């Protein structure tokens, strides 16, 4: 068999030369670009050329700190890398001055990565910062650190060592290694990956497929996007190892169309791998053939469900199939198929390279390794993080996430998107793994964590999720199609202040029936947001129904706006803003709102600069 040793040695030289130079690296993931990273990149290129600076301008993807985007890294030759946050085009000139003066801009620095150099004083070190201290970085190790569009960077940092090692190993031994690592499906269900591969390996048939589920549809989740944009080769390598182990010669990546940058970088990575003889016929002279195709989704949440996804690849309506037969026996085009999530595949090269024991050393008894989470919502530090299984939600939200925005009080965290549940304060110290989250009525899901504070109404949140599942239900089975709609209607009724106590019983009954009788996971998990909010926040439902009051002040129909006479100075801003003419009052005298005329649009509340208008 051929090896990559020569290529690797050459690329390691190139990579070493690259990072030894003075360089500027701009974070260009979707999040960085959305925050203005591409404009910063343009300004840097223009000014570097105008000032004739001898620096290398490069880009990477998202390092994970979305709340500080756009981020720019500057490393002087022989000095630590300094990572700057909130860098807009107008700050570029001063950043370039810092290269000429050889002194960092301390006030904009977020952290530094010293490497072998002596750290600067007065700038925190990345691994010791509150955001990264409790994280581990394996799947995300290249994110924000290497150029995702360069196969040189990938191979120089250990890439494609896993497939080389696998091709020198018996197929069954590869599966055993993955089994021993304890890796479980990162898409949400947590099925042991090695066991799944073993089923497909043992399934009769010469034609088999390895499919990657990159239809990341959960609102609040962007782990897969970040991995695809930041380290696309690792997903390809994971699929190659999986394909080799199960005996597949063809792979598909089903990626949602809302991720154009991920698709672009995947296509590029596939072309590079093909050019290096890592995809195609007789890979590295081992006799193993493997090719990968990309299928762009067409906008249907249910296609994240594995059998619906297979139908969609086949060009059909993306509706789930009845199981059994499972995809491992009868999958894509009727052939044995393994379906794994992006993050699952991205873990595999690291497991094969570093060994199952290395991986299994992280995590809890039943959930091994690390998990990537996306922390969003009303939390200070929104972003991507990789943590060992078994960490507590409190650590994630308060240590890494920096607590709740604007000093408000934490209320709940939604884990697992529309299929998951809301977890309240009293369970914040639960160590996270598949089992413990399940016991709380939530699910691990793909890893989206949306934080809610005291101003979030839990009935409104449940309604939001049901509106989502109701729209995305494919309509094939009755419990999901009809049930989600009926539950949504009841929630709407409660939010409108027209609910009765029997509605809660009806909701509970519907939750049980839909969970037990739906065809696929979309329907089976659709009641979770309702059942968990009923379990932990029943008092909010009761307040809406019995007292006609929304405790969080969200449900419009239950609100009334009033003026606090002692705070109102009669400026008249609210009076002018009111579209219904419900506000009256003389100039410089406290105004008042006629609740009978008020349409509760909230315009006055937003206009008032003196906090004189309250809603309750």
């Amino acid at each position, binding site marked *: 068999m051929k090896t990559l040793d020569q290529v690797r040695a050459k690329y390691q030289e190139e990579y070493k030369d690259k990072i030894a130079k003075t360089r500027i690296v701009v974070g260009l993931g979707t*999040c960085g670009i959305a925050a203005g990273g591409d404009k910063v990149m343009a300004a840097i290129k223009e000014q570097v050329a105008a000032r004739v600076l001898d620096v290398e301008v490069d880009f990477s993807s998202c390092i994970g700190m979305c709340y500080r985007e756009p981020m720019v890294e500057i490393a002087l030759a022989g000095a630590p890398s300094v990572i700057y946050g909130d860098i807009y085009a107008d700050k570029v000139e001063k950043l370039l001055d810092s290269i000429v003066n050889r002194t960092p801009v301390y006030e904009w620095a977020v952290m530094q990565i010293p490497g072998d150099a002596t750290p600067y004083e007065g700038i925190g070190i990345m691994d010791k910062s509150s955001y990264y201290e409790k994280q581990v970085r394996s799947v995300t190790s290249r994110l924000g650190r290497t150029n995702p569009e360069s196969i040189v960077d990938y191979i120089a940092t250990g890439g494609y060592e896993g497939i080389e090692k696998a091709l020198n190993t018996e197929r069954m031994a590869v599966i055993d290694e993955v089994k021993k690592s304890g890796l479980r499906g990162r898409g949400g269900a947590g099925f042991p990956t090695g066991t799944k591969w073993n089923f497909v390996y043992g399934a009769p048939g010469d034609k088999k497929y390895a499919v990657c589920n990159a239809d990341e549809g959960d609102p609040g989740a962007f782990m897969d996007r970040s991995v695809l944009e930041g380290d696309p080769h690792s997903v390809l390598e994971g699929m190659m190892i999986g394909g080799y182990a199960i005996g597949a010669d063809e792979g598909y990546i089903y990626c949602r169309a809302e991720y154009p940058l991920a698709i672009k970088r995947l296509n590029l990575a596939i072309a590079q791998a093909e050019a290096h003889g890592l995809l195609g016929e007789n890979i590295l002279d081992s006799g193993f053939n493997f090719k990968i195709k990309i299928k762009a*989704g067409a906008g249907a949440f249910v296609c994240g469900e594995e059998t619906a996804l297979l139908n969609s690849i086949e060009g059909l309506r993306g509706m789930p199939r009845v199981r059994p037969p499972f995809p491992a026996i009868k999958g894509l085009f009727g052939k044995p198929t393994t379906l794994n999530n992006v993050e699952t595949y991205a873990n595999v090269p690291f497991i094969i390279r570093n060994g199952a024991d290395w991986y299994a050393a992280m995590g809890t008894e039943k959930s091994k390794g690390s998990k990537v989470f996306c922390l*969003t919502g009303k939390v200070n530090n929104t972003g991507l993080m990789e943590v060992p299984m078994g960490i507590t939600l409190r650590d994630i939200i308060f240590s890494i996430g920096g607590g709740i925005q604007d000093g408000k009080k934490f209320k709940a965290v939604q884990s697992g998107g529309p299929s998951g549940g809301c977890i309240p304060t009293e369970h914040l110290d639960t160590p996270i793994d598949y089992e413990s989250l399940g016991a709380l009525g939530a699910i691990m899901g793909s890893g989206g964590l949306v934080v809610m504070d005291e101003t979030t109404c839990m009935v409104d949140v449940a309604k939001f*999720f049901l509106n989502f599942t109701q729209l995305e239900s494919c309509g094939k089975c009755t419990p999901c199609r009809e049930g989600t709609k009926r539950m949504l209607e009841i929630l709407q009724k409660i939010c409108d202040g027209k609910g009765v106590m029997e509605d809660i019983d009806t909701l509970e009954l519907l939750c049980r029936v839909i969970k037990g009788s739906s065809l696929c996971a979309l329907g089976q998990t659709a009641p979770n947001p309702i059942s968990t909010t009923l379990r932990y926040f029943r008092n909010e439902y009761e307040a809406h129904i019995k007292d006609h009051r929304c405790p969080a002040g969200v449900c419009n129909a239950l609100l009334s706006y009033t003026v606090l006479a002692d705070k109102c100075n009669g400026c008249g801003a609210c009076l002018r803003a009111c579209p219904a003419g419900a506000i009256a009052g003389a100039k410089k005298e406290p105004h008042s709102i006629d609740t009978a005329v008020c349409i509760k649009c909230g315009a006055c509340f937003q206009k008032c600069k003196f906090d004189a208008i309250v809603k309750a």
Partner: protein
Amino acid sequence: MVANKCECEDLTKEEALARLLDQYRDYKGGLIPVLQEAQNIYGYLPKDVLQQIAKELRIPFSKVFGVCTFYAQFHLKPRGRNIIRVCLGTACHVRGGAKIFDAAQESLGVKQGGTTEDLRFTLETVACIGACGLSPCMMVNDETHGRLVPKRVGGIFESYK
């Protein structure tokens, strides 16, 4: 050697469609990519195009129509030159995505799914575009805009002609 013909030559829409159908005639599961690319050519999926796709790929028209109406991405009516997709995902929801959507509706004078009369904009919502760290956010064509506030929305639209 004969010089390669430039691939970017101006094809008529019909020629582009014919070339597309040739490419996918024997391709397993090709219907969705064909519809996606046909929509790129025409901007939407006119009835006669769907009929031609059905005929040439030998798929019943009812099935083609079924696939079109199943996926949110396919459109049977003409759309604007610029597609605005306001995110109403969870993270955007808790950070005021609905207010961004209201501002967009007000600025354009169209409702959800509507197209402005000059065919400049189509306004849509999306369940999540995965830029939750920058919520609330929206996409205009393939560009993502994050950390929005309602009064900035109209100004962003201005830059799209």
